[in-house]
């Protein structure tokens, strides 16, 4: 054991001196249980997540977090991006430039490839279904499958509201 500890010191010394002289920044921010972020982020809706953190004795223990602001920033970012695309798609549906499928796709946070995969179609087929003329001629089975995936009725898919 002593031998191990000795080897360890030598090892650290060698690594620290030759490769990365500035690896330790004197920043003593270890993941302590008392420092686990508790930012009550909106996206978790009051739920808590489990994680592992170090207690006062230096032992890892299971702890919980109500979320970290950083997580919320990056999650909201991608959701906002989809919402923006959905909003733009809604305008184009009303101008008869695309079909409601594109709108609901973004509303459910998918892109054409993902939607094609969950539908069991090719991407070009899904993109074709964006064309209002093609969409109008879609059979009920395909429409039903889209409706199931989007969690809406076929009626909601066919009759896109003229206003929000």
């Amino acid at each position: 054991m002593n031998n191990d500890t000795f080897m360890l010191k030598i090892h650290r010394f060698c690594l620290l001196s030759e490769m990365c002289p500035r690896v330790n920044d004197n920043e003593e921010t270890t993941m302590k249980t008392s420092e686990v972020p508790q930012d009550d982020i909106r996206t978790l809706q009051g739920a808590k997540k489990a994680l592992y953190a170090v207690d006062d004795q230096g032992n890892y223990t299971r702890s919980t977090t109500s979320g970290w602001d950083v997580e919320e920033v990056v999650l909201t970012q991608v959701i906002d991006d989809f919402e923006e695309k959905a909003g733009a798609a809604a305008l184009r549906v009303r101008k008869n430039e695309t079909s409601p499928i594109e709108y609901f796709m973004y509303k459910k946070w998918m892109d054409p490839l993902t939607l094609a995969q969950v539908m069991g179609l090719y991407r070009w087929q899904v993109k074709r279904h964006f064309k209002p003329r093609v969409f109008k001629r879609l059979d009920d089975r395909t429409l039903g499958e889209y409706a199931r995936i989007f969690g809406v009725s076929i009626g909601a898919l066919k009759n896109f509201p003229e206003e929000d």
Partner: protein
Amino acid sequence: MARLRPLEHRQYAHCESGVVTALLRSHGLDLSEPMVFGITGGLTFAYIPFIRITNMPLIGYRMFPGSIIKGAVKNLAVEFRTRRYRDAREALDELTQLVDGGEVVGLQTSVYWLPYFPPEMRFQFNAHNLIVYGREGDEFLVSDPVFEHVVRIKAEDLQNARFAKGTLAPKGFIYYPVRVNASVDLREAIRKSIRRTVHMMLYAPIPFIGVKGIHYLAKKIERLNPRKDLKMVRLFLGHIVRMQEEIGTGGGGFRFMYAAFLQEAGKLLGSPPLDEASRMMTEAGDMWRRFALACARACKSKTADFDVGEIAQLLRKCATQEKLVYSLLKTVKL
């Protein structure tokens, strides 16, 4: 069938290690989640630019889905019964039969179809693991490892979740242990798994994996041009952080969980160097968090005047620190 201990719901940091931990415990092998995560070789880093998910490259901080189950078979000599289905009806019948007979089973599901998830989290992700431990009428009793409490799910929703199509489609994947050796040689399992993880992180033959992968990603970040396409840069940085900090990672891209494993292994084997490696891995986790913070700041900044070079530098620090950890682990005699 051996008598199972009644399932006691606990919350875990990660779904797959959580399910496997809980299943093993109900079969008499009581290990912690970090122990299961470490022994099954759950840790990795992968940045694979040509595999894209929702138009973003694949970035992983843990091994691909299913590898913890496979790792338990390999390193803990657990025998699982596993099955995928073509016929959804048959899958439901078999599940009903199993849980009615008192079996506790793991299922692979799609988050998109699980109604008890917060709406903001319901993306198309097909590799979420949960436990079904009973049934009441048309509802299944679910112990979802990343939730605080047990939940219920309607058979129809569960069917949708089990038979979602797309990347990593679960195809109704069901698994449960049939033979568990409660007196398995942990020392040997720990030694084997650490050696394997170290080897992968240091010597993977392709530049996308391990420490090299982290440097590769740093280089990619450095070459981003926020002035040219600010939105894309922001979404890319956000994507990296989502993979690192989202639900089911334990934060710091699984690094804290692995540090917990190293510490526990150090105690079990009476090895101070493992304890030291654990502290160093905790530092690595903290560095990942600093990197995440810098990315989030860039995502929020109104202008393009953040420095991608600085962000890349923070990432290189993670790589350097992790290299120290693995190099130390390589020299430790276990």
